């Protein structure tokens, strides 16, 4: 068994050193390995298909250079293509010209939105901002309590006029008025001169029409400067369905990849970036307030294909 794509590619090419050009058969064998590696990394099937075709195209034109063996050469192409998609439009938070900057969080259940709210607030506070958290998830049992605790840990205030689901009523019915809470939260921030407002929303499925409409209504009510779509790095093929549903539902402006401290390869990063064209802005890397960083497309490319070692070799060549 070969562990990484780079090992497998090196094996595919072991007899090739010194030849002038890669044959079509060599390239097909390579592209098969790349396809498999991408699928093992949970990159979405349609994205794999397109990506493999693009790599094949470029590899066909390759001259084998002296410094790199063909395996390295192809890995280099793959890496460049990956970084291009992942980092095509990297950028940082867009702040409003007239404060407050309004940031809305959205995503599937359990993706890491509430935790991210705390991390963002903590980081922004460290940069001299005065963020306010808004508890607009009234659905999940004790989501409001959770955000309040997170706010306290981050040392920022929370706007939580409604206690949310405390168990007295069934979660199947809509509790309170999350749209109203979000709207009032932004008004409150303006009034109290908070320069950033972060609105936490309930987790929802892409296929849940009623809840997706609610998310769209929240967006319409607060006209956010950023709508961040939080997605779990462990997600598999469903990434495309979900990202597409949220793109249509709330038209998110950026992506946050969560739970990157795990050992999932995180192919979803590629799927989401490719399918939605929205930039991946941040990586969430743990449960603590400070486990949060700017997204690095080059690191992610190496992670998806598990080929950090080969990249180092290429850089040295």
């Amino acid at each position, binding site marked *: 068994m070969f562990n990484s794509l780079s090992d497998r590619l090196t094996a595919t090419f072991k007899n090739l050193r010194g030849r002038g050009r890669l044959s079509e058969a060599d390239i097909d064998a390579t592209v098969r390995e790349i396809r498999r590696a991408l699928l093992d990394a949970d990159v979405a099937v349609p994205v794999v298909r397109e990506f493999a075709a693009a790599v094949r195209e470029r590899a066909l034109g390759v001259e084998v250079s002296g410094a790199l063996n063909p395996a390295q050469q192809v890995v280099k192409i793959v890496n460049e293509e990956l970084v291009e998609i992942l980092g095509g439009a990297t950028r940082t938070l867009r702040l409003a010209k007239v404060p407050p900057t309004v940031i809305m969080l959205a995503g599937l259940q359990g993706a890491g939105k509430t935790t991210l709210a705390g991390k963002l607030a903590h980081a922004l506070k460290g940069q001299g901002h005065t963020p306010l958290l808004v508890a607009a998830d009234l659905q999940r049992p004790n989501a409001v*309590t959770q955000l309040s605790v997170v706010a306290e840990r981050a040392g920022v205030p929370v706007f939580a006029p409604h206690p949310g689901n405390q168990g007295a009523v069934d979660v199947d019915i809509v509790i309170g008025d999350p749209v109203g809470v979000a709207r009032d939260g932004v008004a409150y921030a303006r009034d109290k001169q908070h320069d950033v407002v972060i609105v936490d929303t309930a987790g929802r499925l892409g296929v849940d029409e009623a809840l997706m409409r609610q998310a769209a209504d929240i967006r319409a009510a607060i006209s956010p400067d950023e709508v961040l779509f939080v997605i779990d790095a462990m997600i598999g*093929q469903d990434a495309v369905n979900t990202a597409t549903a949220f793109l249509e539902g709330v038209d998110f402006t950026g992506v946050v990849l969560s739970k990157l401290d795990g050992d999932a390869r995180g192919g979803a990063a590629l799927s989401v970036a490719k399918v939605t064209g929205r930039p991946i802005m941040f990586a969430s890397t743990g449960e603590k307030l400070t486990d949060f960083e700017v997204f690095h497309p080059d690191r992610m490319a190496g992670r998806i294909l598990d080929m950090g070692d080969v990249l180092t070799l290429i850089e040295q060549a």
Partner: protein
Amino acid sequence: ARSGSPLGARLLAVLSRDHLTEDDWDELEETLLLADVGAGPAGELIDALRTRVRVQGVSDPAAVRALLREELIALVDPTMDREVRTDGAEPGTPGVVLVVGVNGTGKTTTVGKLARVLVAEDKSVVLGAADTFRAAAADQLQTWGSRVGVHTVRADRDGADPAAVAFDAVKHGKATGADVVLVDTAGRLQNKAGLMDELGKITRVVTREAPLTEVLLVLDATTGQNGMQQARVFGEVAGVTGIVLTKLDGTAKGGIVVAVQRALGVPVKLVGLGEGPDDLAPFDAEQFVDGILG
């Protein structure tokens, strides 16, 4: 290249050729890939199917699909024992169910739903809030418990020793003659050695009071190939006896459990179909496979 092969083999290949196009086969394979079955298992399934189709001389794509359905159902194995063990292992001890998994999969919600099912069966239930880490985790569990009138044993402060809380919950269950104790644990990623050690300790400490009758690993249906790693490591550390596949009410199919069941022999016992208290159901192999095949 064919010319070198013996006549008999060549003849057989021609005579027993299947009549599906490569596109048909690709489409079948993609169906499996899109359900997160994984490239390895999907490839093997399709290869096996190709052989079978050739031998049996099946030529109609619909019939081949039916064969694939058959193979998948056999793999998922409807005859597996999927009962959730909630009866005490020894006289005078409650059944003890430990719920484990990575962050945000639906552990606390599943405990809440299970409590509801057990209470409906007239069982007396105690909940243990052994997630002392996440903000308001114990409150969340207690909310679920109070809804069905079940007591929650919890620590008096954040960051308390989760093993101690789990122990106290089981002890309380034993002392009060409860039928079942359900212990909720904090989400943890399987590559975090410290947190996995902590989980190992929880299982050891609880076992001192009463044997664990069921250890449920909660897997999120949206999880991709990492689910295998989750099942492996949690299986080693906590002795997982069953899987709960949550969030099947979305578009994700949860196909990773096919490989998990095959590799580890741990059956999926329950499925989560929503956020409400009644959205928990026994796993049904045929329904699950039909979900995968669309």
